[in-house]
């Protein structure tokens, strides 16, 4: 109970800080649209190749947006040395961590809420329930992992670069399985999505449990 209220307080504090800038959602939306524009220029893109390329663009954008979002999750803390002040309270590090992951995941969901319709609109691919659920399920696991490593790298040097380094390898399962699900959902590739979905759920559970077990080693020292 106490842990839950701490997690919520942390998430609320993060979102309030973001909200002060008032521009978060529009900025994310524009970032996403720009990524699509760039993808369009980079790839030789037409109606024939769209279902093959669109999932790749979706995941590349999501991965980079995620890295930005999770990097930001601990940015305010490390710049102002307030992380230490937060850790020097009796609050459980795992609860603090959960709060930060929650806030970051919400930001990523906002990002997806823009990315998916934009992708459907601009790339003219169908947007099915399978696609949305695959993306959301992948978000959970990606968020806990991303925050774990963001917390770790916030305390070392060259963190902007270290974050992708630690995070990307562990995101790969989500990208591979989620990518498959999305490709099928968009009409390319083969095989069912139900197995992919249950695999994503398994992965989420695995990483949430693992992360909550190790969070205190990362945040406390």
């Amino acid at each position: 109970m106490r842990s839950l209220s701490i997690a919520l307080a942390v998430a609320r504090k993060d979102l309030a800080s973001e909200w002060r800038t008032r521009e978060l959602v529009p900025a994310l939306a524009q970032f996403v649209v720009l990524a699509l524009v760039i993808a369009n220029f980079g790839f030789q893109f037409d109606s024939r190749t769209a279902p093959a390329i669109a999932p790749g663009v979706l995941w590349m954008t999501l991965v980079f947006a995620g890295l930005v979002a999770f990097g930001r999750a601990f940015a305010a803390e490390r710049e102002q040395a307030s992380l230490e002040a937060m850790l020097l309270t009796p609050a459980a590090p795992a609860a603090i961590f959960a709060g930060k992951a929650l806030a970051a995941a919400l930001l990523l969901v906002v990002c997806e809420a823009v990315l998916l319709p934009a992708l459907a609109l601009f790339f003219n691919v169908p947007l099915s329930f399978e696609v949305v659920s695959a993306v959301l399920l992948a978000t959970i696991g990606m968020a806990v992992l991303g925050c774990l490593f963001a917390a770790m790298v916030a305390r070392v040097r060259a963190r902007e670069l270290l974050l992708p380094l630690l995070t990307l390898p562990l995101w790969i399962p989500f990208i591979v399985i989620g990518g498959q699900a999305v490709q099928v959902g968009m009409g390319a590739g083969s095989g069912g999505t139900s197995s992919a979905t249950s695999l994503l759920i398994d992965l989420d559970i695995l990483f949430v449990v693992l992360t909550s077990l190790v969070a205190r080693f990362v945040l406390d020292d």
Partner: protein
Amino acid sequence: MTSRLNVFEKAALGAVALMVVAAGFIFVFAPQDALQGPVQRIFYLHVSSAIAAYGCFAVVLIGGIVYLWKENPTADRLARAGALVGLVFTTVTLVMGMIWAKPIWGTFWTWDARLTSTLVLWIIYAGYLMVRRLAEPGRQAARFAAVVGIFGFIDVPVVHFSVTWWRTVHPGPVVINDALPAEMLVAFLITMACTLFLAAVMIAIRYRIEVLTDQAADRIVAAAVAVPSKAGSTR
């Protein structure tokens, strides 16, 4: 009764009246397009608002340069007003174009050079307004925004010439090439004149709002300063 309206209100009324006139030309005077049917009537506002947007962004550019050069707050306020109004007209062009595209091309969007560059234009000036808001108000916001406005204007010629530089789905120049029937041309020119007037009025009103906002801030400060000083003088 009219005497109670100030110059801005009169101008706004005039602009609205003119837009009604333009609507008359668009829907009554102009002939129906043989191939496309009624949807072609989007053309008039679609193109006019694009040109109005170019004009607004030119105001942003010039206002920015003048501000950097002379530090003239008037120039900055004009630029601020121009960016917002220009963004509105870009939005109109985009939305009109997308509505037009659905029946003609069978899709709302395609990655065509004209369409893409227009979308980028929208994003650039949305970014401009965002810089304004996030930077420290005053000098820093004005300077940063001026720099964005100068770089951002590069996209305006790109949008305009995109149809000649690249092979596009979007139609190429028709007005300049005399490809319009005379009645359509008249309707277009009148719509454009009215739209440009509307844009000018919107900029003027927005400019006025900026002036009043700045003055209001000054007045609040003056009030805040006056109170303790009076208290001090009785000491």
